[in-house]
């Protein structure tokens, strides 16, 4: 990326929400536990399609890459992840159901 034409540097910062901090924490824990290397995470970020690379936020890229890394390592499977995501989504939707009636 170095040397490519780009725009003005806006000195933006944001206070990281908890879910982003947890992504950061999980990457560190899994590295320290010897389950993954940061190099695999970087490789998987580099492998994101250009639109994803440009449009996803920093931690959206990290969680995508971390997930891919764990699937590649065989620590989780796509099927398990799919089932868990369905379960969580239903749980969240039920909690979000309006209380009016």
């Amino acid at each position, binding site marked *: *990326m*170095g040397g490519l034409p780009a725009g003005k540097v806006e000195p933006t910062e944001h206070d990281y929400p908890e879910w982003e901090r947890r992504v950061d924490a999980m990457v560190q824990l899994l590295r320290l536990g010897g389950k993954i290397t940061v*190099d*695999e995470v970087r490789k998987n970020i580099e492998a994101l399609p250009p639109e994803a690379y440009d449009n996803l936020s920093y931690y959206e890229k990290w969680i995508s890459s971390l997930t891919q890394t764990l699937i590649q390592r065989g620590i989780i499977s796509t099927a398990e992840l799919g089932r868990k995501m369905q379960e969580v989504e239903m749980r969240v939707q039920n909690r979000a159901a309006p209380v009016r009636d």
Partner: protein
Amino acid sequence: MQPQFATDYPALAPSFSVGDRVRVRATAPLGHIRTPFYIRGHVGEIERLCGSFPNPEELAQMRNGLPAIPLYRVRFRQKEVWPDYKGPATDVVEIEIFQHWLERA
């Protein structure tokens, strides 16, 4: 040459010394690479031996990256890297580069 950071990986011997003129290999293989595109083919000078570290290209592929490879900081003159560099001729960019990406210049 003494590394700034000692590590105890089995490692290749360092080939370069401080002050050596080196060229970054001008090649673009596939895989995860930590030698930036903008510096490939350019000539610089060894500023220090950082130490020897496992090859990130291999670590990225779930291999152990050993034997560790000597990692150097290499100094380049900005006016030699960028044809349109507007700052003074003294400005430099210093980059960590693994030994296998360097050849004697």
